[in-house]
């Protein structure tokens, strides 16, 4: 039936995913007492500010303490600390959605703000930059190579690429990154081993941008290397599967040139399953990005994850878990749209 309805169903499913992850996160936080600790920390932080303000007007220390105690009680009620964690569930979910997670314990944003929101959002573009660049390169290279292999199935090239795919599938992103650092950054000194800019960063917009690209090169290569093999293999298999369909034989019999058969009868038909697999691969590249950023000290959300784990900063970890799921869900929905547009057969009738 309608495109819109189909997409709406997918959208609702993906929103369900987001909500499920949130509830999972919040329940885990509540049941283990983490949420109590986080809220207590927020209350204390608030009180510190209040104390400074009150200290100027209230001179009597006892009265000051009493007022503060009263304020603490109010705040605890406000945050729901006086009730068990599960009664706060909706409230907490809302706070996670708005990334209102108070302040980080040790981590600071580049500008020095301790607010979780600003720390996380500041890192977002760097992760998105890495993910999109590597995904696009992987997708394009995989399509070109995979299609090429499908036309030469069983050849030596095909077989050796199959083996390379197996290796690529087995490569963990972080170890590949380490290998590349050892080789290209330390042995050969071609590329920087990590970070965002050289120090000191070059002046001038263009130079600065080129420096950024130079630093992004190794992480991007790593991400492409670890996902390319499986992807090439998928494209090859999908194309081969479609090439076996009878309508391809019919198209050839119709006297269509090989190029047109490949474009309209094989690739066009194989496109929806290929997109599906792109979707499935997305989760993997998300994980790869977290680890790759860590290895290359790339100041995105993945590296932040690592730093937050090292400093046991739960507010930041919650925010990151949520953000990663959000990125995933948004990207999936985008691919879902492509899928529905590509395949007239799927519809809810």
């Amino acid at each position, binding site marked *: 039936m309608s495109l819109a309805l189909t997409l*709406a*169903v997918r959208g609702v499913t993906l929103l369900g995913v987001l909500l499920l992850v949130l509830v999972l996160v919040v329940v885990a936080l509540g049941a283990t007492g983490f949420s109590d600790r986080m809220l207590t920390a927020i209350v204390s932080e608030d009180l510190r500010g209040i104390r400074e303000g009150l200290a100027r007007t209230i001179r009597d220390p006892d009265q000051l303490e009493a007022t503060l105690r009263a304020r603490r009680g109010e705040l605890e009620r406000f945050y729901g600390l006086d009730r068990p964690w599960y009664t706060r569930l909706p409230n907490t979910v809302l706070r996670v959605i708005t990334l209102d997670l108070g302040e980080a314990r040790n981590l600071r944003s580049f500008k020095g703000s301790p607010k979780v929101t600003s720390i996380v959002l500041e890192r977002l573009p760097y992760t998105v930059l890495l993910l999109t660049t590597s995904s696009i390169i992987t997708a394009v290279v995989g399509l070109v190579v995979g299609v090429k292999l499908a036309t030469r199935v069983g050849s030596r090239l095909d077989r050796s690429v199959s083996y390379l795919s197996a290796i690529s599938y087995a490569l963990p992103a972080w170890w590949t990154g380490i290998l590349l650092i050892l080789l290209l950054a330390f042995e050969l000194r071609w590329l920087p081993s990590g970070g965002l800019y050289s120090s000191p960063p070059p002046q001038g917009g263009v130079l600065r941008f080129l420096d950024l690209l130079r630093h992004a090169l190794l992480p991007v290569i790593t991400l492409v290397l670890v996902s390319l093999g499986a992807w090439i293999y998928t494209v090859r298999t999908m194309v081969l599967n479609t090439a076996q369909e009878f309508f391809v034989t019919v198209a050839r019999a119709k006297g269509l040139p090989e190029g047109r058969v490949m474009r309209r009868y094989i690739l066009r038909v194989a496109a929806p399953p290929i997109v599906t697999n792109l979707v499935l691969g997305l989760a993997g590249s998300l994980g790869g990005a977290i680890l790759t950023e860590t290895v290359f000290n790339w100041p995105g959300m993945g590296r932040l994850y690592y730093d937050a784990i090292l400093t046991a900063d739960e507010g930041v970890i919650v925010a990151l878990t949520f953000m990663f799921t959000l990125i995933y869900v948004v990207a999936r929905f985008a691919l879902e749209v492509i899928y529905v547009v590509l395949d007239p057969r799927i519809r*809810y*009738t």
Partner: protein
Amino acid sequence: MSLLLAAEDVVVEFQARKGLLGSVRVRALDGASIQLEKGETLAIVGESGSGKTTLARVCLRLQEPTRGKVSFDGQDITHWTARRLQQFRRRAQGIFQDPFSSLDTNMTVGQIVEEPLVIHGLRDGRQDKVYKALEDVKLTPPDEMAAKFPHMLSGGQRQRVAIARALVLQPELVVADEPVSMVDASSRAEILYLLRELQERHGTAFLYITHDIATAYHFSQRIAVMYLGRIVETGGTREVIGNPLHPYTQALLKAVPEPDPDNRLRRRAVVDGEPPSPAHPPSGCHFHPRCPYAFERCPVADPQLQEVRPGHRVACHLWPGADAAARLPEKPQTGQAL
């Protein structure tokens, strides 16, 4: 003769999903009734979408009817639970169309034929029974055949394995759903003769479901023609085929090709169009949009099955009453259509 199986006014509806929340009811069977005597063969003939396979499933109680009644040997089995049906399943068996997908490829022929005995907990002389069944269907030598896997057999041989599996329990009723449509034309008769031979020997009653009215002519005593979930004509096979009273039966008979070199010199007068979807059946007589004889009444009133000639019943408004001399003319009396 006594009645073995009876389906009375059976309705089967399926919920087909439509849209996100809505669903539409598809009526696969729309008030069909059949009766099968012990030891006889009744052929059910119809095209795809006529509901003949659903009727077969109802008769084997693989499908619980939405309305109506199914009785076997005097017992109403319409709503029996799986546990209770077990005793029915021992006495009634099925043979299915596809000899490639109806056998478990992981089992040997011996295991396949033995399975009904295992399921019904019959321990005595299992191997003898299996070998006997294999011999009955002329898969010899049985010990050699029992060790083979289905993929080593030809289509015809596989179908005989399926028959042996159905007959190893010596059932009283066998529902054969298109048993030869996927077998090579030159071997079809062989399988049908085999079934007839076994019927004569064991007194089994067959419900022979087919789209091929010509084999029904040779291998059944009685016939029922189905169209869009309804039985439109039924009676003795010779009588119905020799003197079709329903325009659809007539069209069906005309459409059957026979090897005659003169065919190429003439057009066959066939009905227009394709059978409509059971999700959107036409009003009144379901056949009226394609019927060359249709008149005002056809789209408004449902015709009921009525006996027009002795033992020959038809659901068509052309036959208001019994008429022993009834005969459908070659050319329609009225215009092409409404």
